[in-house]
């Protein structure tokens, strides 16, 4: 038997960018779950999860440490900074759904500050103007040459989620984009 539990090494250990107008920092490790649920079973899954799944695509619900992002008509990304066993909570749900743990698949990056929107706009072709993309808006989209999931967590703060092996690219892109003083 193993003597000790293996050490967790996150992909962006030690990386951080702080500029007067924007900061780019890795988010803390979190539990993540990809939920796929047909409309008729949303209520059952919501109940088991203890969080109501928002049903409008591109919207999210946040309470406490947990955010639930509606990414597609039957797809949610659940992110819980508390490290709870999200899949475990759904073990007993009989109604057809798919819950897949992706805690380690994704890496979160927090972009915050006056220039957060502009920094992301260097590589994301969506309109991030606050009235068009209000706090709580989320979507899967593109940043440069990588897919990301974008969640606006504040007027001047976004959470960027990407796959682990793309995190170096995504972080470096944001770091490079944030150099531009115009931002």
């Amino acid at each position, binding site marked *: 038997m193993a003597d000790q539990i293996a050490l967790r090494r996150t992909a962006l250990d030690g990386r951080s960018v702080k500029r007067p107008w924007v900061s780019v920092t890795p988010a803390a490790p979190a539990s993540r779950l990809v939920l796929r649920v047909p409309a008729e079973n949303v209520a059952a899954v919501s109940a088991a999860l203890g969080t109501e799944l928002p049903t409008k*695509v591109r919207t999210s619900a946040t309470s406490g440490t947990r955010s639930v992002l509606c*990414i*597609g*008509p039957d797809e949610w990304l659940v992110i819980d900074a508390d490290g709870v066993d999200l899949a475990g909570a759904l073990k007993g749900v009989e109604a057809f759904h798919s819950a897949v743990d992706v805690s380690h698949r994704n890496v979160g990056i927090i972009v915050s500050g006056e220039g957060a929107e502009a920094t992301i706009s260097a590589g994301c*072709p*969506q309109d991030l103007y606050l009235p068009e993309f209000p706090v709580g808006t989320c979507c*899967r*989209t*593109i940043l440069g040459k990588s897919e990301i999931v974008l969640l606006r967590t504040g007027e001047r703060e976004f959470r960027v989620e990407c796959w682990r092996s793309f995190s170096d690219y995504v972080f470096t892109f944001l770091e490079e984009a944030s150099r531009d003083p115009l931002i």
Partner: protein
Amino acid sequence: MLLIRCPYCEKDLPEVEFRHAGEAHLVRPSNITEISDEEFEAYFFLRQNPKGIVFERWRHVHGCGRFFNAARDTVSDKFLTTYKAGEPKPALGESA
């Protein structure tokens, strides 16, 4: 870069989030093992490729992930409409 209305996201979104997926309303024969070589050729290879209104499939691959259909004018690249997968071909005023 085109702007494409995803019928699932109900929003106009940039083309780089989407992947074109060929002619729409082609149905895989349920008796595919029984069709002739000619029928297989027609199903798998032959395409309308119209100059004008095309019915085509797109996938919002870097978005909601859904396949959907669109009617687009291949001369102007303007979208006439987009609609969810499985919905019938819409009637379009002037042509089709």
